[in-house]
């Protein structure tokens, strides 16, 4: 019995190269340069930021080639207060993860809200991007450290109900 093989380890790995596609490449290159660049659907005119896989999933067409600059301010369309600590957490709870509809975009991006007590964050609240120092910029939305309130009046629900 002691000679029986009870367990084997068979590690398997494959290295992959990932291609962002020309439309998301423009988005990633824009971030390196401190710009927020989306792409417009030629059929329904919605602006995708980020351009996802390069198509408008509603219409099934390729997004247009032209860059569409969005933000840097936007509107909180929905949010979640994070109270639970977890492994690898970078921020001390409670904090707010929100979906932010950048001005000029038709889909929201998820980001962090700081500069306001978590229990004061609300749907329709206006926020703006707070960028990291440009020496830290790379091809990532993490170039924006967080969003903070602008102090502008809240946006009416009906004005963003179509982009939730």
């Amino acid at each position, binding site marked *: 019995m002691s000679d029986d093989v009870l367990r*084997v380890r*068979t590690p*398997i790995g*494959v*290295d*992959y*190269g*990932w*291609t*962002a*596609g*020309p*439309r*998301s*490449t423009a988005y990633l290159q824009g971030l390196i340069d401190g710009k927020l660049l989306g792409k417009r659907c030629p059929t329904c005119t919605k602006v995708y930021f980020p351009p*996802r*896989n*390069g*198509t*408008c*999933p*509603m*219409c*099934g*067409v*390729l997004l247009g080639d032209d860059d569409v600059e969005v933000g840097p301010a936007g509107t909180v369309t929905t949010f979640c207060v994070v109270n639970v600590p977890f492994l690898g957490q970078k921020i001390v709870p409670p904090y707010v993860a929100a979906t932010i509809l950048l001005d000029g975009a038709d889909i929201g991006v998820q980001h962090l809200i700081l500069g306001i007590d978590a229990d004061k964050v609300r749907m329709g609240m206006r926020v703006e991007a707070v960028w990291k120092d440009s020496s830290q910029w790379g091809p990532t939305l993490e170039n924006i450290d967080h969003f903070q309130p602008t102090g502008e009046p809240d946006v009416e629900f009906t004005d963003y109900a179509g982009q939730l």
Partner: protein
Amino acid sequence: MRDIAVVATAHSAVTSTTETPVESLVPVLNEVLANAGLQRSDVGFWCHGSCDYMIGQPFSFVQAVDALGAWPPIVESHVEMDGAWAMYEAWMKIATGECDTAVVFGNGKSSSADMFAVMALQLDPYTDAPLGLDQVSMAGLQARAALDAGVISERGMAEVAARSRRNAMTNPHALVSGEVSVDELLAAPRLHDPLRMHDLPTPGDGVSALVLAAGDVARSISDRPAWIRAIDHRIDAQRLGGRNLATVASATEAARRCGVGDGRIDVAEIHAPFTHEELLLTAALGIDPSVTEINPSGGALVSNVLMAAGLARVAHAAERVMHGTADRVLAHATQGPCLQQNLVCVMEGE
């Protein structure tokens, strides 16, 4: 049983693309729909074949729906197989009367990784995968078994490669083509003994798509639909040591159930990424090379878009019927290590 036919096809293949797989799908889907004269809203069912392991992204197949225009909601499905098996699902869907038309597509991005290593991940994880075999090693084992059994020869393998490259000269989606002599090929060194470079497939990134339609809908789309008279797929044991690698019993059984031998086959498109596989399959399917034109497209040897190459065989065979240059054709697709799974489809003109 309803009459169901292939009525339109479209392909793309390049050595490597920087597009996302979803971006690459859109133009081919547009082309196949245009060839059928259909709008997206006319499509009763969408069925997709692909493999997440190819780009290393779980549930990547869900993203493919972004290429379809799924609003208002559509009816769609996916198989983690070559698109030929997606065609089988779509064929069943139409046969049950649930819809009259289906768009079938398969796509792959071979440039994402070492596909010979990726394809080895389908081996038994306890006994076979730890041996470190890749797909070429497995193919070499099968070629060696067949050579030793005396059922194929290295010259025969080189003849397959030379003919495939010659045929590829008229296939705009071939990634390698040209005139080359058998002696020239045999003078090259064995890279993966007994395999030489010409015995291996030419990997590509791309898409193949086709439209299936039933009865009068098919007749309204195409002047000469490629009617699917029989379709069947069978599976051999997965373990490489569990079967005689010099034969392909599942292909023989699928061909028998399709009645391949009941009449003349004008054209056979055989999904054989390696040269010896085509020779084994030709015998297993009961194809007579003196009567049947084999792989006029050049086959997977000249353009191996993984997860689309099997569906491409169906499409290329159907094109010959639709163009009126063949009456009865066979299409074959394979999956799994060393020809484990085999699908056979027989199509005819009106």
